[in-house]
């Protein structure tokens, strides 16, 4: 880990701790309205001012960070799990199963991600409670974001299945289930972990785009995507530059994640 990555990790740690301790750091709830302090500038009480409904922006930012930073990994976990099942089965079973599952993965990859996300999101109820909207948004991301990782996992499984030690284990009469659980799965762990971490920034950005389009997490629950909607009011942003805090934090966090993941290396393959 180089110096840049250490700094990125430290920054991420600070953001995660601050978001988890939102109840401690923020002086009010994310939904509490201060009707005598509508759109006020930053002060000792409201560190990032208040929004048009008189809600503390700093509190909303911390709670929104918590929503995005906790649920993006949950969605990534779901996507990796689906990818592991499909990609692992394709690579492990081989033959016609591999062809069939790989064709399915290729077909899924050829569908435009955001268009598909919108189509499925539109099928589900739009007027839901905030908590349901969070679950729907991140479940959707998880259920639709498995195809890319599945391709990598299939390739990794195929390489492992053809490796000498597995061929030898198979030849010595080990049962297929033991071969899978004791020898294949532990060796697939690095690929699964890599796919999990790679999916997180992708899902954070997708949620931000969905939120900005009004199809993400519902009010009053904050998320980065929902908070970015304020930026559409250009004149208000010019007058109140602290409104840019969510976008700065989002870019910083995704940038840190990419630094940690070594994006340059990944894009080369």
């Amino acid at each position, binding site marked *: 880990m180089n110096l840049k990555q250490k700094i990125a990790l430290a920054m991420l740690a600070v953001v995660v701790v601050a978001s988890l301790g939102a109840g401690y750091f923020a002086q009010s709830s994310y939904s509490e309205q201060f009707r005598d302090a509508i759109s006020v500038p930053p002060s000792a009480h409201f560190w990032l001012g208040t929004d048009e409904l008189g809600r503390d922006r700093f509190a909303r930012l911390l709670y929104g960070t918590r929503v995005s930073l906790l649920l993006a990994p949950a969605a990534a976990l779901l996507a990796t799990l689906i990818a592991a099942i499909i990609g692992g089965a394709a690579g492990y079973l081989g033959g016609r199963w591999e062809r069939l599952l790989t*064709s399915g993965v*290729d*077909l899924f*990859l*050829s*569908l*435009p*991600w*955001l*268009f*598909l996300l*919108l*189509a*499925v*999101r*539109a*099928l589900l109820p*739009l007027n839901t409670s905030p908590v349901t909207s969070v679950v729907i948004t991140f479940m959707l991301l998880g259920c639709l974001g498995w195809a890319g990782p599945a391709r990598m996992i299939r390739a990794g499984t195929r390489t492992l299945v053809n490796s000498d030690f597995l061929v030898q284990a198979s030849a010595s009469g080990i049962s297929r289930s033991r071969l899978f659980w004791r020898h294949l799965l532990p060796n697939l762990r690095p690929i699964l972990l890599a796919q999990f971490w790679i999916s997180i*920034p992708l899902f954070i*950005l997708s949620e*931000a*785009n969905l939120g*900005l*389009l*009004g*199809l993400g997490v519902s009010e009053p629950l904050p998320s980065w*995507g929902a908070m*970015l909607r304020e*930026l*559409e009011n*250009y004149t208000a*942003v010019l007058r109140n530059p602290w409104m840019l805090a969510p*976008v700065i934090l*989002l*870019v*910083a966090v*995704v*940038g840190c994640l*990419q*630094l940690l993941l070594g*994006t*340059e*290396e990944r*894009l*080369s*393959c």
Partner: protein
Amino acid sequence: MLSLLLRQVRRILVTVLVGGLLGATLVRLGPGFGVDERELDSRLSADSQQAIRLERAKENNIGMFYFRYLSSFLRGDFGFSRSLNRPVAELLKQRLPLTLESLGLGVFCGLSLGLALALLTVWWRAPGSDFVPALLSGLCLAAPAAVVALLLLWVGPWLGEVSRWAIALVVFPHAYRYAKNQLVSTAQSPHVVAAQAKGLSSWRVLWAHVFTPAAPQLAALAGISVSLAFGASIPIEVICDTPGVGQLAWRAAMDRDLTLLVTITVLVALMTLIVNSLADLALAAWKPSSGSTAGSAAA
């Protein structure tokens, strides 16, 4: 070459069939399907209402519905948009050219910028020479497409059509990073070192011995960039208020007009596949030994 062509055609056909099935299923299961407001009209007789129900009953069989959906899709009849009260084909005819123009220019500018900066980085080679392009590409990669569009809108009206510049900035970081990695790995190969040792000028080495061998792999980026740009077109067109297909898809999602949304999704998937297939075929024609794998490697 012929087998590659046949493979691509088969892939496109499978996508149409399966994508059509998925689309038809989504439309069929979508909320509001099978509801006809004419049934609420008290002026209609019982016979008329029964006739309406019978007419709709034909669509209850999902197999028949799929067959009718697909056959009308192939005839160019994409159905009727409930929310905009117009045929989908008419809406697409009106909006598709604008999106394609933005996409074409955006992808071209993004790829050119990425490639130019990657070439410059490899040519210069001084420590820290890639700091500015790496920072710029990192920022563009870490910002959602909608935020990129918003920032460009703020920059000012002198940019003209903002959506194409926003698409360029979405494509640029991917193009830059991929091109830089390809060029750097080629620049480290023994034939380049030998060319430098023989005293060839740095520009000649870069052009003839680094860029030309890496060109097929770099060309594969074009296909991927189109798919990337299509995805980014939704938030960008919504933010920039560009009346293109991306904005249409968003409106369809907000109004829960699944017929329109699913048709757009299948069409965009088809266009992406066709562009990717063309890129693969062009690569195969250019360099038969490695062309067919370049696209998949880049993907």
